[in-house]
């Protein structure tokens, strides 16, 4: 008997081409998100495939370093909004308890989930970030990797906080350890993204580069690390994973996820959802700028930093 594969027939069939995998001769494996028309938004089967590919890299002695990257304009915009899990009873709400549990496991506490596959990988992990790195891509991929190499003008952050609430970005142990508490709260409570440069200053990003140089800079860093003695890397990764376990940074806080499911929008906030239904979330964020007192996550696109 095989575990159920969540998703629609279409999303299940597309996943292999939406998450690509290859290993170069230097021992660097690349997991490439390949759904550029959706800013590489992750469907359920795509997340499953990421977890499977991390397991494949972990099992391969020739792989020393694992790089996550995205094709197209963005690294990844997070999980697909209103994703279809393919549950059998269409009259049910989008998230049944079965689905909710699995979603929570994926995002937070579950050791089967894709984020913990990354945070517990036996290899050194690197996120190569350009364009948008938002929501789940921010706190479940980039913040889970050992190193982040970012384009200076990347837009990184908890953009989902505007409509799902800021709890995950504010309360997650690992984000607080990476950014510091004030910065973690600012990213959550304002939903304002960080540029790559700002993320470097705050400690999330290891190296910034102009976007056109990002692949070569990342590749060089990955190859340098892969060239270290295998035993040394093996020991260091095991050493770091143990300490991260002690600090509870390998397991993101569940709070944010749970809180997001109990959100009840006020009437004027419902405008956001109505607009989103009509023109998509990006359009709703644009329209939201006009609302008095609303945070504008897309403001300050080119900060001086």
């Amino acid at each position: 008997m095989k575990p159920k594969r969540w998703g629609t027939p279409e999303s299940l069939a597309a996943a292999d081409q939406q998450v690509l995998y290859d290993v170069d001769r230097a021992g660097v494996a690349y997991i490439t998100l390949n759904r550029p028309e959706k800013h590489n938004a992750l469907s359920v089967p795509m997340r499953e495939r990421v977890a499977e590919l991390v397991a494949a890299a972990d099992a391969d002695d020739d792989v020393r370093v694992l790089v996550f990257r995205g094709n197209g304009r963005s690294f990844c915009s997070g999980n697909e909004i209103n994703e279809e899990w393919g549950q059998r009873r269409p009259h049910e709400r989008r998230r049944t308890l079965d689905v909710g549990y699995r979603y929570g496991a994926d995002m937070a506490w579950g050791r089967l989930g894709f984020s913990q596959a990354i945070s517990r990988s036996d290899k050194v992990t690197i996120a190569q970030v350009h364009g948008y790195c938002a929501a789940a891509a921010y706190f479940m991929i980039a913040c889970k990797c050992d190193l982040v190499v970012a384009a200076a003008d990347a837009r990184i952050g908890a953009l989902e906080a505007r409509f799902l609430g800021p709890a995950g970005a504010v309360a997650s142990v690992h984000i607080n350890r990476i950014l510091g508490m004030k910065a973690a709260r600012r990213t959550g409570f304002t939903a304002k993204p960080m540029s790559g440069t700002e993320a470097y200053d705050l400690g999330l990003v290891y190296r910034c580069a102009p976007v056109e140089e990002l692949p070569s800079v990342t590749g060089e860093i990955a190859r340098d690390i892969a060239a270290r003695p295998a035993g040394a890397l093996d020991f260091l990764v095991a050493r770091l994973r143990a300490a991260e376990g002690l600090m509870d940074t390998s397991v993101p806080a569940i709070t944010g996820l749970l809180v997001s499911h109990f959100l009840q929008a006020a009437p004027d906030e419902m405008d956001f959802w109505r607009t989103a239904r009509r023109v998509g979330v990006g359009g709703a964020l644009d329209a939201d700028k006009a609302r008095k007192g609303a945070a504008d996550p897309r403001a300050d696109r080119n900060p001086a930093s």
Partner: protein
Amino acid sequence: MIDVKVADWVGTVQVADFAGLSRYDAAFAWELRDTVVALADDSEVKVIVLRTDGGDFAPDVPGAPLPSDRSATWRRVFAGAKGLYQSLAFCKKVVVTEVTGACRGAGSALVLCSDLTVAAEESSFGSPFLAVPESNFVLAALTMRLNRAKAWAVTGDVLDAARAEEVGLVNQVVPGASLRAETDALAARVTAMPLDGVTMSKMLLQAVLDAHGVGRDFDLATHYAARRRHAENAGGGAL
């Protein structure tokens, strides 16, 4: 040889360098540990300064012997609760490290265990986590933030003094010629605090560090040493 002076509430510990710790010189380490504990117990001391004669703080020691997780001496002197590093990290007085030149291996472990660090402009800092399995990664993550500490470990990057200050590993970077005077001035400022206030703060700080996992990471040193030995055996040679 360890030279100790106590004056004006400051206990100063001066050695040629701290590389003996990277060589696992147990006699040196235990004498240093005893000195720190004795100074901490001295009611005339509020601050303990660790300094060298002026050369490298802790130069690299290629081919240093591996600590063995089976060694009772290593566990007692280096990795144990009463050993050197925990005596420093949980010291009841303020510990200041004064760094000049190369700071590698055990030297960086000392810096992580100290409360304050003043560094000369030409100093540089290598990650201790490969060579010194009893060094404390949680302290690094708390000091530099998590991702910087991870990158320091896995890339093998050596941080120059300016970068060490940017990431929070060092409090102050000064010209080498004024290093000693600046360290003494910093120590003198701390001595302006009431003795009981200093001791109470360090007592409270111990609980905070433990809540974050510092003590638990120290407790796993034996496992880290065993894991390192396993990696070395599997690779057929030194890491």
